[in-house]
């Protein structure tokens, strides 16, 4: 068997008549940081909870460290989990929260004391050990939740949207802290989020899920640069990729892409394309730029959203809406007309019937 550490084989899950997971297959390497990302209801949390032993398995197998754990109880799976709501025990002090699991497993007292001290120092909780969760800030609670996972010295860390209850600024800070912790401990980690920024910034590998299926697995930039299907193309990236429907046309031996409104956009040479073939033409907003060339696409700007270090623009191309991203300051105002150029080397083409990349 491969050196995979956590492995899912044909895993399925139903709630009543609703199929939540349709045969998940995935191998996670030792000390890898894998992020499961997808819209809500895609089954990513269920997959995590099944890994933790909080949900039963309808069919298929989960193995952790080469041991099938389908029937192993949660506490014996060698996992630790950080919940979205932190799930701290509200009636226990920080120290008691950290030690509860060790006490339940009848760990000798001196070992408990040592583990707590080391977890507390790693997470900067040493001053807070006597406090109750209600007396802590959101970030501190988050740290306690992580500390509770840490003292279990698990083989696998499971995170279920751990940052979504924090405000934007703290979230960025904690993101870095979790990543740093992983680099230090090298514990295999499975991290669930719906936030693509978290997925991109933290993961060694990203698993994009949708509707109970895995859409694509790969390194963050690999997925971003080469989405395998329409769902991934649309899901990753903010503002989202422009996805335009139309067909391939031949012009003087050259191929072009014709939109439904008759406007043509350039296509790179691609032997896989036939004339009149219906395709989806995908271009990320940052790959559409203003141009002085009179042959550029004529558009009217409809919306200009300055976001500080970048500017989001919406443009109207004879009835078809395009999104643009500019990292330079844009002096343009809504209503202005402009000409745009598309970077044809950065195109993503998809088959509209299968949704797959061409």
């Amino acid at each position: 068997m491969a050196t995979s550490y956590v492995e899912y084989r044909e895993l399925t899950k139903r709630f009543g008549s609703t199929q939540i997971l349709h045969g998940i297959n995935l191998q996670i390497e030792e000390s890898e940081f894998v992020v499961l990302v997808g819209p809500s209801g895609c089954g990513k949390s269920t997959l995590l909870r099944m890994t933790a032993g909080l949900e039963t398995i309808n069919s298929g197998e989960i193995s952790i460290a080469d041991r099938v754990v389908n029937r192993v109880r949660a506490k014996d799976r060698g996992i630790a989990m950080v919940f979205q709501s932190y799930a701290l025990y509200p009636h226990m002090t920080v120290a008691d929260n950290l030690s509860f699991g060790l006490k339940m497993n009848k760990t000798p007292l001196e070992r408990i004391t040592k583990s707590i001290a080391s977890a507390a120092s790693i997470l900067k909780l040493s001053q807070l050990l006597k406090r109750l969760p209600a007396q802590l800030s959101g970030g501190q609670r988050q740290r306690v939740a992580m500390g509770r996972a840490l003292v279990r010295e698990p083989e696998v860390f499971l995170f279920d949207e751990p940052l979504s209850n924090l405000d934007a600024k703290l979230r960025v800070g904690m993101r870095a802290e979790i990543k740093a912790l992983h680099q230090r401990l090298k514990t295999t980690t499975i991290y669930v989020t719906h936030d693509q920024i978290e997925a991109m910034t933290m993961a060694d590998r990203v698993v994009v899920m949708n509707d109970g299926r895995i859409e694509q697995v790969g390194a963050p930039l690999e997925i971003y640069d080469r989405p395998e299907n329409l769902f991934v193309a649309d899901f990753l990236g903010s503002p989202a990729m422009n996805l335009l429907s139309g067909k391939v046309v031949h012009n003087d031996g050259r191929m072009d892409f014709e939109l439904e409104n008759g406007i043509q956009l350039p296509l790179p040479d691609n032997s896989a394309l036939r004339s009149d073939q219906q395709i989806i033409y995908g271009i990320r907003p940052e790959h559409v730029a203003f141009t002085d060339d009179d042959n550029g696409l004529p558009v009217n700007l409809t919306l200009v959203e300055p976001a500080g270090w970048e500017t989001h623009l919406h443009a109207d191309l004879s009835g078809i809406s395009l999104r643009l991203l500019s990292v330079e300051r844009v002096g343009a105002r809504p209503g202005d007309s402009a000409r745009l150029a598309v970077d044809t080397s950065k195109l993503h083409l998809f088959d509209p019937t299968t949704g797959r990349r061409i």
Partner: protein
Amino acid sequence: MNRQMTRTEESTLRPEPGILQDWLGRYRRFFLIGLPLAFLIIWTMVPILWAFLASLKNPLEIYESSTFFPRSPSLAAYQTVLAIDGFGKWIFNSVLVTAVATIVPLILSILAAYGFARYLFAFRHVLLLLYLIPRIIPRVSLIVPLNDLMTDLGLINTYWVLYLTYIASAVPLSTWILVGFFRAVPREIEESATIDGANMWNRLRHVILPIAWPGVVTAAVLCIREGWNEFAFVLALVTETGMRTLPYALYMLKDSMGVQNYAVYNAFTILTVLPLLIVYLLLERRVVESIVSGAVK
């Protein structure tokens, strides 16, 4: 800002509010809150206070009805009550029956409420309904068949008859209260405990019960109240003097004492009410909060 929005209000605004309006403001508040509050206090406290004051008066003074406060307060009536043959036994009966009718239902309903709050199992709605229906059955209506049943079982005039009926009527109430409190404990906290290696008993003991403690206290106080104050069952199922609980003994006092013993009568009343009121006042905050929050229905 708001004033500009409604023109009518602007026109009724007087240039000078003046002292008169200040007075009206206070006057209004006094009428709308002060008077009802005074009425609430008088309404709530007078029956208890009057009984207490009467218990300190001498019997003739009560009968003359000429004083509010006792002329020469005396605890003689309480001494008389304590000296009543059987009073100790009645207190013992009340305490014993109440204790059993609190502890047993609490244990049963903690288990049941946990089952209902946390497990998805077949027929759980039917079973929950069976727990709840008794709450709309007037207890007094059951005294006829219960007397019949308990006579057949030969349990009349035993503690068992009181244990059984009190436990049965306390379980639905406390289960209902606890189901609400247990459900309010976030599931994730329990899952976290599961991962931490706590089994069901440990989760219940170390996680659920401490977090839902206000609910347990409320359920306990209400069980104590039921047991301590219950009258219809003890009236119907107990006939021996030595088996009476305090409410029954208080009721029977009317027959055994003459009119002139009003002070004693009142002292007896105060003594039966006082222990439960002390329990309530000690745990008042939890109970009131639970009722106000809608957890007790």
